[in-house]
């Protein structure tokens, strides 16, 4: 009987232990020996996991005594995970972080400013491309460092054969030319589309309206993030352009219904031959080379609006970076890891990580397309387009503001409001939201 009792208790303890163990999945180098173990969260999944493991291993080699508990987490729940960890007083030492989420965390001081560390280690902000660095600064302090690029989000990949069939000789530079080209490229029977020339509502990066407004020479919010600036001539021109483009695609319902079939990632619309021009980011290069070797395509910049200029096209919007949360257990060593992930050009660090994926770098001295000593044949074209990017400011209430902007565009495209009414209503709505935020958090 005693034996049975012991057995039952043993089973009970084992079950409890397993339950507690199942909550933690870690990837720690068993060969690393050190007094300090950093907890590091990132969202580089798929074929980037071994690349990040190599970067972390190189960091451990270069920093004896510091080990890294390298944890991959899905990116879509990142804020829930991070907020929960911070609230529980057990945040990671270093985490990958969206620049678009910075204002709230900086205002509530949930992040450690990096300026002192940068000064002590001689890391100057000058090593970064200015447009990439500005999104990491808030209230005059640097809260995170960037990697990869937050630009090159609005590259216009276009099908050269479609252009030739339609008799279009070069990629449109202005909105008027873009409308003409889209009309010539779109195919269908008048009710149902067979091919879209271009979908102005499907822009990567920032919400489509903000991207087009940026290409029309206008920021959507003031530099101090306190005043919404969409209800003006540039805003009206932007909505009218999106409206005209949607009409070419037989209206918003058919455009959206068609786009459902267009797919994404490795099933990009341009690969499926469903669209002639597709806006996407520099990461699409990998998909196109892997899944569409035969596709005859080129890359161009976002056309500019009547209020814009040829020098301001795509929107640098957010992007990723790395930061140290407040209450991190080992902030000094955490800074060393942040620096390795973002400023290391020579070793297996931040630059090498991008080169393996062939995507642009926010570090001026790092050619992200240079892999094994050879640059990518399209690197020059993509970097040339990215050089025309301008920073689109991000507000501390951005996710909710994005929903409001999306509704405004729908109000116009579905014909429920005039352009003027939609702009006035939405500007007032977002302004009220923003005022509420500053009232509570100033």
């Amino acid at each position: 009987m005693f034996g049975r009792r012991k057995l039952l208790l043993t089973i009970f303890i084992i079950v409890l232990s397993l339950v507690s163990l199942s909550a933690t999945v870690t990837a720690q180098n068993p060969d690393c020996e050190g007094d300090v173990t950093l907890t590091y969260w990132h969202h580089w999944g798929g074929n980037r996991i071994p690349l990040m493991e190599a970067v972390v291993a190189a960091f451990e080699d270069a920093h004896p005594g510091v080990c890294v508990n390298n944890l991959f987490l899905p990116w879509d729940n990142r804020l829930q995970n991070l907020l929960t960890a911070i609230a529980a007083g057990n945040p990671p030492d270093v985490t990958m972080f969206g620049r678009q989420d910075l204002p709230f965390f900086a205002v509530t001081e949930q992040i450690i400013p990096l300026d002192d560390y940068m000064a002590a280690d001689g890391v100057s902000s000058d090593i970064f491309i200015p447009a990439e660095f500005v999104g990491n600064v808030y209230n005059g302090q640097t809260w995170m460092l960037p990697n990869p690029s937050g630009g090159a989000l609005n590259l216009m990949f276009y099908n050269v054969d479609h252009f030739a069939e339609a008799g279009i000789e070069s990629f449109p530079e202005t909105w008027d030319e873009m409308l003409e080209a889209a009309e010539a490229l779109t195919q269908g029977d008048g009710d149902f589309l067979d091919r879209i020339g271009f979908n102005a509502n499907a822009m990567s990066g920032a919400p489509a309206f903000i991207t087009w407004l940026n290409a029309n020479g206008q920021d959507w919010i003031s530099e101090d993030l306190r005043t919404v600036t969409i209800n003006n001539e540039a805003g009206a021109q932007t909505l009218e352009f999106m409206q005209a483009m949607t009409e070419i695609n037989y209206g918003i319902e058919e455009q959206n219904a068609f786009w459902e079939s267009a797919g994404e990632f490795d099933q990009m619309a341009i690969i499926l031959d469903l669209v002639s021009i597709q806006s996407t980011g520099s990461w699409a290069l990998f998909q196109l080379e892997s899944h569409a070797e035969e596709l005859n395509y080129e890359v161009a910049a976002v056309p500019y609006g009547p209020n814009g200029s040829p020098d301001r096209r795509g929107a640098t919007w957010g992007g990723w970076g790395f930061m140290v949360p407040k209450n991190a257990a080992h902030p000094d060593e955490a800074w060393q890891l942040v620096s390795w992930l973002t400023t290391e050009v020579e070793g297996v660090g931040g630059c090498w990580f991008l080169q393996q994926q062939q995507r642009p770098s926010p570090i001026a001295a790092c050619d992200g397309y240079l892999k094994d000593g050879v640059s990518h044949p399209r690197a020059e074209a993509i970097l040339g387009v990215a050089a025309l990017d301008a920073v689109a400011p991000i507000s501390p209430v951005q996710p909710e503001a994005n929903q409001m902007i999306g509704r405004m565009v729908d109000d116009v495209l579905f014909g429920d409001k005039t352009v003027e009414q939609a702009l006035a209503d939405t500007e007032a709505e977002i302004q009220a939201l923003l005022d509420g935020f500053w009232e509570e958090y100033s």
Partner: protein
Amino acid sequence: MATAFGSQLRALRGTRRERWRDLSPMRKREARFGLLFITPWIIGVLLFNLFPFVASFALSFTRYNVVEAPIWVGLRNYNNILTDDPLFWKSLGNTSVYVFGSVAIRIILGFALALLLNARVRLLGLWRTLFYVPSVVPIVALSIVWLYVLNARAGLLNWFLTLFGLPRVRWFADPDYAMLAFLIMSTTWVGVTMVIFLAGLQGIPEEYYDAAKIDGAGWGQRLRRVTIPLMTPTIYLNVLINIIAAFQVFTQIFIMTGGGPRDATRTYVLHLFDHAFQFLPPEMGYSSALAWILFMIIFAFTAVIVATSRRWVFYQGQE
């Protein structure tokens, strides 16, 4: 009344004490082990159900962004929801359409299928399994399948419509049809309702039907006079279960439309989720208030159904 209740309680307590005293050492040991083994479950319920339940009520009177201490705001969240949040009313309206539509579909279709399968059909087990299997498929996988079925250009349903000369429908792009698409999708879970109905049908004694036949009742009369009245307890159960579940519809809408187009499929829980987990700063206090309003609505519906059940639910042997 109170005295009678108190004496019953005292009697019950006394009985329990006597029973525990009367237990043999071996049974006592078993009981202790039983309690030990359900301890994780009890701890789970206390920590992950009861505590959040109470905490969310307290948080509903605060402004809480998760990373800072909650700030007491009294009834402000409730006031803002009811007077200054157009999406609250929009999402509540959408959810109501889904609740009434999907519950009606699942009750009527589930009952009809159960009647069919209750007849002496061949391969009964196979049919039951076929109708039930979709209910156990993960909802994410189901959502992906339905996205293909309801695809405007190449979807199975539109292909079927065109066979009859009907026009293609832009299910998820047209605000007039988007919620209808989710009502069609709700037939996926009809298997659960059907199985419960089937169990109820098999509990009706054959003698009632024999007596009705002798009295000259046809199939329709037997259905109206015998089957449906005796099935009211099962209908009652199914209505309650389905209403409570339908009010909380979320996953498929989050995956398939995100509440669009034009907020035509923005349901209540999706609205709540946005404020809690999508927006910055997180609005946990506001979301808690939304959750408590939903709780009160579901509670009210349930109370009305329970209160009126005496008028329309009949049990065998009841006068």
